[in-house]
């Protein structure tokens, strides 16, 4: 691994940290526009984070150390995840440290800690949120794995970098399994990032909220970290989707020019993706919590079908 690849790694993490809130802001802005509202500034999330960091953090008197520890763990995990995904370059020191399975495990670790932290204070909403989060988790996680597997079967590998590499540097071929995987992935990432049909990131309506219920007891810097982690997660998922299904532009090696190009391509793709997400969210309505399992089960099945279709055509 050369100094450049280390640089690429660091750059990538920093880009993720910086771009993540921006992506959130961008999506929110478009949502507002699509609803004929005056949109908040794209930079609103940064302001929010700053405000929260400045404020004292107020926590329940009987909260355990785990409660205070959780935001850092979650933040760390998600950052690491962003570092693993080859958004700019496929030649990253971290990419060998974790393949897709490890990536999913990493996100699961973050989820478990959020849930535990939510249960720690012992309020009705906290436990409720934790239960719902884990419910979504155990349905979304296998679906995500299946999606990744169907791609990894194409490239005969589970290491993201190699996947991207093969998908980019192969004569354009049509894989009938991929569309299923793509749809499934979209559904999963909607659920995982608490987007509309599953959860509403802006709601505080007790009966429907999931993500908000989890972080209800947090305030100040802890809340800031949680929110930042949330937007990082959204960023990560978007990147996974992009590198898996639209991997063009990702730099094969850590050459500075290529990196710059990749960065531009990434921003462009994210912008488009954000708009698409906003459109989708505005068009669809929030579903009842009891419908969510069916929604995710559908995603799971789609992913499995994709896998089957692939094996069928491969065999």
């Amino acid at each position, binding site marked *: 691994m050369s100094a450049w690849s280390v640089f690429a790694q660091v750059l990538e993490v920093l880009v993720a940290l910086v771009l993540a809130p921006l992506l959130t802001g961008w999506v929110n802005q478009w949502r507002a526009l699509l609803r004929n509202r005056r949109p908040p500034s794209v930079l609103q999330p940064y302001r929010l984070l700053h405000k929260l960091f400045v404020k*004292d*953090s*107020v926590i*329940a*008197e009987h909260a*355990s150390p785990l409660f205070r520890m959780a935001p*850092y*763990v979650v*933040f*760390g995990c998600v950052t*690491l995840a962003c*570092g693993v995904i080859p958004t700019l370059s496929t030649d990253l*020191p*971290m990419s*060998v*440290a*974790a*393949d897709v*399975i*490890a990536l999913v495990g990493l996100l*699961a*670790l973050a989820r*478990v800690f959020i*849930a*535990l932290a939510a*249960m*720690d*204070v*012992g*309020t*009705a909403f*906290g*436990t*409720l949120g*934790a*239960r719902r989060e*884990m*419910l979504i*988790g*155990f*349905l979304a*996680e*296998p679906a995500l*794995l299946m999606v990744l*597997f169907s791609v*990894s*079967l194409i490239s005969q590998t*589970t*290491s993201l970098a*190699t996947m991207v590499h093969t998908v980019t540097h192969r004569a354009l071929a049509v894989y009938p399994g991929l569309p299923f995987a793509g749809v499934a992935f979209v559904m999963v990432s909607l659920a995982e990032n608490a987007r509309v049909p599953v959860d509403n990131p802006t709601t505080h309506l007790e009966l429907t909220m999931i993500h908000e219920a989890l972080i*209800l*007891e947090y*305030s100040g*810097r802890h809340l800031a*970290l949680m929110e930042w982690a949330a937007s990082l997660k959204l960023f990560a998922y978007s990147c996974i989707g992009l590198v898996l299904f639209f991997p063009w532009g990702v730099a094969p090696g850590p050459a500075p020019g290529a990196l710059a190009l990749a960065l531009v391509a990434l921003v462009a793709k994210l912008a488009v993706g954000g708009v698409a997400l906003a459109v989708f969210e505005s068009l669809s309505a929030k579903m009842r919590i009891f419908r969510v*399992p069916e929604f995710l089960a559908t995603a799971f099945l789609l992913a499995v079908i994709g*896998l*089957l279709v692939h*094996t069928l055509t*491969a065999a």
Partner: protein
Amino acid sequence: MLAGPGSWLALDGVLLVIALWLLVGLVGVAALRRFRFVARVLFPIGGGLGLALAALALAAAFGRPQVAVLAIGLPGLPFHLRLDALSAWFLLVIGVASSGVSVFAAGYFRRGEGTPPGLLCLQYHVFLAAMAGVLIADDAYAFMVVWETMALSSFFLVTANHRIPEIRRAGYLYLLIAHIGAIGILMCFGVLQAGTGDYTFANMRAQHLSTGWASVAFGLAVFGFGAKAGLVPLHVWLPEAHPAAPSPVSALMSGVMLKTAVYGLLRVLFDLLDAPQWWWGALLLALGLASALMGVVYAAVQVEMKRLLAWSSIENIGLIVAGIGLATVFAAFRMQTLAALALTASLFHVATHALFKSLLFLSTGSVLHATSERNLGKLGGLIRSMPWVAWITLIGVLASAGLPPFGGFVSEWLLLQSFLFTTGLPHEVLNMLIPIVAALIALVAALAGYVMVKFFGVIFLGQPREEKLAHARDASRWERAGMLWLAIGSIALGLFPVQVIEVIDPVTRGLIGTGLGEAAARSGWLLAPTSVARASYAPLVFLLGGALGCGLAWVLVRRLYHGRVRRAPPWDCGYPWQTARMQDTAEGLGQPIRQIFEPLFRLERELPSPFDAQPRYRVVVQDPIWHAVYRPIGALVARVASLVGLLQQGRIAVYLMYSFVTLLALLVWVSR
């Protein structure tokens, strides 16, 4: 076959450890009621012996197989002993796990709990010795003797508190199924010896059975060892027996004893039988998945902590067996490398499960002693009153949920890897099925996370659901030490998978002919079973990255901003009248699972109507298999018995008639 004098040491050492364990037990009987001596001296000694066993096993793992013959047994069939890589691996697991459990037990057992301490000490150490004996037995008779001794000693341990009828019933069910399974194993050996009358495993290895007989032997082995391992549908004893036993015993049974069954299955399947059939593997795969799914789903809806863990043991055994099944399929198609991969995953999981499950059972034991509550609905918030137990348990919980960078994740990672590479199978149906299997494995893994969050969250987090929990005392020094040891173990397994796989390598070499050893060695700290380009996982880098992320975040936040914290009542959307009763109960946390997997359950619901004066909600989840399989069998036996009972109906004339008719029939038959 006969090993050189140099390599004799390990096997002799193992024998010595076994003998010393027995000795410790006898000393315990001698000091029948001297509680302090038994607890504080004998049990730690037993733990030390466990460590010694682990060391010996590690030494023997890479050596040639060692054999020995004891002067006891049947005439012409003395006890043959053999220590090869497979035995060594399981011995290692037993040694490490049991040492932790023994140290814990030193602080656990209290006065006046059923059986006198000395007797308990005897049964406990005989149990340990028998488990070690199972792993080195090299002929059918020796194997059966130690096998049943293991069952018997564990039965007495389970019913240590035999004044409670439920516990007696649980023990009875356990021993019954164990015994019937043992007869199955016995018949399996009967087939394997191929009528030669020579019951040594060496002879069985030499025999080449016809496919039919081999399949019979395989079926009997699956039946016998499955009954011990708790494979669905032979699992019914497990959720009864494990909660009934004292916690260290449950830890040993769940963590270690179930593994001896896995060992037996491997021994018969890959060592004694030659040329496995692919459908054997398919069968194992199906059984394993059924157990895994059923186990985890039932664990999710349990409201009693040890029962929850027992069901999760069924799940883990299911995963292990599924891995073995996959390995069998590969072996049947001569895809040795992949077989080695799958087998390595199973063996790795054997170790991780042994450690974290023992740890979790021990922590339930501490909770039980501190609160005398086993019902999740009455626990909560213990992380404040018993921080030691809570934080150590958290490690076990994360490992059990299969989260990186802990031990559980590595085995799941390997297992999924091996599933991913199955598309090359020369068998279309399997190629179709395997992805679905992989999906189910992923589902099970995710559900395990759910279960563990429920387990930890309900016991240790939130507010205490009962007043008395507030002043629960933390575990004693001995208990902490034991649990800490196991926790360290499961962390180490997670961080140094490559080194562990190098120990497993000789095992797979011995059984399948190839291993992941040099691949692992090549990639150094990086776990890459086949090639780095294909799949890799580096827990240490991983951990460093994560720690770096957390640490930097922590430091920077304090540098750039501040570290001020204000304490206040919980916010909870501004609702001030929070009580502990408003938290989700165990049932509540199980509700989504109950809803989604309804067909798998046999539910007894009692829902209140809106007009009830005192509305009462009750839901009982029962095992459908108990009703679908075991009840009918019992009824059938009863009916047959009542029919046979007609023979004995007291009238002498009828009795004379019997012998008269028998005589005539016999005369007709012989003079035909």
